[in-house]
């Protein structure tokens, strides 16, 4: 009897091997994916979503224009915050803050040119990171110059500001481009599905149908198909989603590999865009202090010494 129970136990163990092996495989795969996500990308969740639309020329133009709008909003907010700070303390030194605003203005020009030149998703991500960094720098420096109570008051004042005419212009331009882009995107999806829905595409192009409607129309379109057609259509859409994931991953990897190396030339290019001599001087002074620009560059420029001006620009 004992012998038979032992044989049964052995058989049972053998039977469990495939199950255990399958679970183990699944677990290893999950861990690897998690590690890859942590190690290979520094893009925020928001940027990851933004990058997908930027995979086309028109999409990249929209993202760059949206970035230009956000930088403009921050320049206006920063200038208002500096003015409010000076009202609370007349003797406060705001040169550092003004220098950041000047660099942001130059960054805005860079973004605008990138948008005009039909630059790629990569450029968008790099410039967005620069904008985030300058914003953080301003916030940090501003906090050092103000009392907590006053900061709260200024924050309320700045956040409650009405939208400027410039911002409204941005909104109009962006809306027009978004309608075009979404209509093109929908047209491409229908093409992939081998379907036609010109009415919906036109409604999207005219701004009469938004993303939620696109989603529900696509769902009902898929549900109207028979089982086999639906499976085929979903497989195609899944392929599309996978392509976007690969693109996102490529942008993240390239950003990680090239961001710092390209930063040097971006900062250099940015300084050159500052037309106002005084403004350029205060930006260079700050960058010198941070060890980004070679020491003596601002002074050399003031003297008109071209040899020293082209001195090396170090990355942050």
């Amino acid at each position, binding site marked *: 009897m004992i012998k*038979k129970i032992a044989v049964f136990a052995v058989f049972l163990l053998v039977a469990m091997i*495939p199950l255990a092996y399958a679970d183990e495989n699944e677990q290893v795969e999950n861990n690897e994916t998690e590690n890859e996500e942590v190690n290979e990308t520094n893009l925020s969740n928001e940027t990851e979503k933004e990058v997908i639309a930027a995979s086309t020329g028109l999409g990249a133009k929209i993202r760059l224009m949206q970035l230009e709008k956000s930088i403009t909003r921050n320049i206006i907010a920063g200038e208002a915050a500096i003015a409010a700070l000076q009202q609370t303390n007349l003797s406060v030194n705001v040169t550092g803050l003004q220098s950041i605003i000047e660099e942001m203005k130059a960054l805005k020009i860079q973004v605008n040119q990138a948008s005009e030149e039909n630059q790629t998703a990569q450029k968008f991500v790099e410039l967005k990171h620069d904008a985030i960094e300058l914003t953080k720098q301003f916030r940090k420096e501003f906090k050092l110059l103000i009392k907590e109570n006053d*900061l709260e008051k200024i924050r309320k004042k*700045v*956040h409650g500001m009405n939208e400027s005419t410039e911002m409204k212009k941005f909104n109009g331009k962006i809306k027009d481009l*978004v309608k075009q882009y*979404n209509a093109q995107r929908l047209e491409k999806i229908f093409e992939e599905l081998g379907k036609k829905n010109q009415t919906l595409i036109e409604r999207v192009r005219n701004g009469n149908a938004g993303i939620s409607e696109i989603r529900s129309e696509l769902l009902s379109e898929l549900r109207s198909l028979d089982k086999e057609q639906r*499976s085929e259509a979903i497989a195609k*859409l899944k392929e599309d989603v996978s392509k976007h994931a690969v693109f996102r991953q490529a942008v993240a990897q390239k950003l990680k590999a090239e961001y710092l190396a390209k930063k040097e030339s971006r900062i250099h290019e940015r300084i050159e865009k500052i037309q106002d001599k005084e403004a350029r001087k205060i930006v260079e002074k700050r960058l010198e202090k941070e060890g980004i620009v070679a020491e003596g560059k601002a002074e050399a420029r003031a003297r008109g010494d071209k040899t020293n001006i082209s001195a090396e620009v170090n990355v942050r």
Partner: protein
Amino acid sequence: MRPAFIIISFLVILAVFAGCTQQEQQQQPSAEFSPEETTETVNSLDQSFVNDSQDVEIGQMV
């Protein structure tokens, strides 16, 4: 004793077969898509459209 042994052997073979089938199912995704999967795929496509009321976030100055 012999019938009991046959039943046990049958059960073991059944367990091995079930194990193999489960493994195969995990390796080969079904070609048929559930309604949930259909919705999920369409929702994933959402990210490739642009929402004009959403800004590119770079943070607040103060």
